[in-house]
């Protein structure tokens, strides 16, 4: 029998953000990444366009992240104390689309590195890999307000993705992105109204919407992922209805959140009812990613190579055309 399928006609679409720049474009990247551009709900190819697939940025830290789970650290044995080698491994060994570099050692309590040292780390990583870079600070506002502008200036032309701008602290980093032509991560705490408000504040300063990526702050699997899920979904629905102040591509710190969960970390000896830890942890991270892909995440920041591999396959499956 004929089935009259329902195809939504959407007025708006997600803006496209380009990260990285090749030699012709004034940078040194061998590839650039474009995210966004969707004119439908995630992966509903039958009623809209999804010109760019979601991408995976792998996390690299400029200090040995002792606190990380052993299984994640084991996957990077020998390179954890060397961000350059670590980044290379992510790109060559795991096919990371971007490197997400955290300059944690600038934190006064974790090394107190100078802006010059931070710039050197970023430059070294840029020299070692050809993929675009996202660079974020250590989370201490006063420190980040020094190091991120220094990185922005020294890497002008590379079209980096810099973070984080928050409601309390956005002026300095927005200015650095505008002057040196980089992209910005606007971070808000699981609240669609604050998200919209921050976008308005940033664009009023003069940074255009096509330079902004939204980090609406996700919760990991088991720990508030449903809030993130619904906020991303509402953001996408708002975008499709034409709300331009929500129409930016989205980023989620999947690895960071997923590996906080008890379920990802405790050993089988401690919790026999939860099964073997390695596989459980990997799936915890991968599923945090795939669940949020269904609500509209464009850029996934991940850690474990096996989790990355699972998510890459899921994205490939979901990017196949569909018709109804």
């Amino acid at each position, binding site marked *: *029998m*004929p*089935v*009259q*399928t*329902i195809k939504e006609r959407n007025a708006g679409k997600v803006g496209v953000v380009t990260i990285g720049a090749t030699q012709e474009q004034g940078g040194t990247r061998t590839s650039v990444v474009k995210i966004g551009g969707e004119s439908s*709900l995630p*992966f*509903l*190819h*039958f009623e809209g366009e999804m010109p760019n697939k979601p991408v995976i940025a792998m996390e690299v830290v400029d200090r040995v992240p002792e606190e990380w789970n052993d299984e994640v650290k084991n996957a990077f044995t020998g390179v954890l104390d060397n961000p350059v080698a670590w980044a290379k491994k992510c790109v060559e060994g795991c096919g990371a689309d971007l490197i997400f570099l955290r300059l944690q050692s600038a934190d006064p309590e974790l090394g107190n590195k100078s802006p010059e040292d931070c710039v050197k780390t970023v430059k070294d990583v840029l020299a070692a890999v050809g993929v675009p870079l996202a660079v974020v600070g250590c989370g201490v506002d006063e420190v980040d307000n020094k190091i991120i502008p220094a990185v922005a200036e020294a890497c002008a032309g590379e079209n980096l993705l810099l973070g984080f701008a928050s409601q309390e602290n956005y002026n300095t980093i927005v200015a650095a992105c505008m002057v040196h032509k980089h992209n910005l991560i606007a971070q808000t705490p699981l609240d669609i109204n604050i998200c919209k408000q921050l976008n308005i504040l940033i664009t009023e300063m003069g940074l255009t919407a096509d330079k902004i990526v939204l980090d609406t702050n996700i*919760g990991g*699997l*088991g*720990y*508030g*992922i*449903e809030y993130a*899920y*619904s906020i991303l*979904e*509402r953001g996408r*629905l708002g975008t499709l209805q034409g709300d331009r102040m929500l129409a930016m591509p989205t980023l989620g710190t999947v690895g960071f959140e997923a590996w*906080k*969960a*008890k*379920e990802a970390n*405790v050993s089988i000896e401690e919790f026999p*009812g*939860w*099964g*073997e*830890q*390695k*596989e*459980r942890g*990997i*799936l*915890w991270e*991968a*599923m945090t990613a*795939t*669940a949020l892909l*269904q*609500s509209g995440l464009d850029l996934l920041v991940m850690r474990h190579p096996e989790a990355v591999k*699972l*998510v890459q*396959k*899921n994205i490939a*499956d*979901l*990017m*196949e*055309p*569909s*018709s*109804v």
Partner: protein
Amino acid sequence: MALTGLDIFKLLPKKNCKECGQATCLAFAMALAASKTSLDKCPYVSEEAKETLGGASAPPIKLVKVGKGDKEREMGDEVVLFRHDKAFYHPTCFAIEISDKLTGAELDAKIEKINGLVFERVGQKVSVDFAAVRNESGNADTFAAAVKEVAAKCNFALVLISTDPDAMAKALEVAGDTNPLIYCATVENYEKMVELAKKYSCPLAVRGNGLEETAALVEKVSASYKELVIDVGTNQLSQALAELTQTRRLSIKKKFRPFGYPVISFTSKDNPLDEVIEASVFVAKYASAVVLKADEKAQILPLMALRMNIYTDPQKPSQVEPKAYAIGNVTKNSPVYVTTNFSLTYYTVEGEVSGSKIPAYIISCPTDGISVLTGWAAGKFTPDKITEFIKACGIEELVDHRNLVIPGAVAVIKGALEEKSGWKVIVGPSEASGIPSFAKTHFA
């Protein structure tokens, strides 16, 4: 589309007799529109109104039950496309496959393994839902023998997978009284399968190849039998997502009857990790049941967590009972942490406190299930309320000291809380993840 309260009101007797339990006919109409009551509560409603309302107020997706007694699971009866519009009500059921080629000790071991897929996390007990016996042998007697074993030993209800009506008939002879899901009726076998489903009054899965064939087949079957579950029969994930979306949209937005049933999906991958990832899409996107081969605890637990999360009612934050919880082998000198009774907040703190390996008490203040900062902003996590709860929860008898650790995010209440409660207040880390190192410095 469902009728509005006013549409329904026009068809009611307007006696305002209150016999339906509502104050007025209009109130009754409103309750009907919100699916909070049923039309049969009104003794005076006309036949004509019944017909109009029965059709229009019937749920867009039928509720179908599989299994009996404490093995019973409900599927379907959903009303929205997005959980933030209302809620998803009936969590996706997970079925784990068993091949009928397994016999004896191998079969027993498999059943044992599936029985073990029961988990405790964040204070809730959850489990898989069905054992799905597949007629892989192609032999009817072998199938029936395996089904009999599984029915006797498995703690979960059954899905019987065979397209051979003879095999299904034999399996139903041994397990038909357990209300298994019969999988499945196809274009070739549906007449015989419907007959079997009727004979044992079991739910029946109908599988077509794509939306049109499935709709056509459901039309034929539903003319005589309505306890159905549908399978659109697609293997490729993005196409399956498109079709799941359409079945849900058409049933809810257009009341398209052939799709007004719960949907069952099968994973297509061979590697269990890939399977589980594939299943995560089905959980988020409308599948009422998912059949998997993966059966390791570590593989199923993440799916359990996702299901719990996606099917949480967005309007009702989940809460823990407000009380003093002992974590580990506590003594009269153990430290005391205070937090709210929002499950997520409580279990995040609990995880870190138990991870710190230093036994402690956590007292969960009654904030109606909202988080620390929200509770503070809403006046539910204030020095007054915390003091009140310190007295009420009995912690003063449990410990000899009077030291209280508060979340770093509400450091501002320290002074007032000390004054009101008479306890010494220690400001803890603002993220629970900081608890282990905090505990080491302060209490080791």
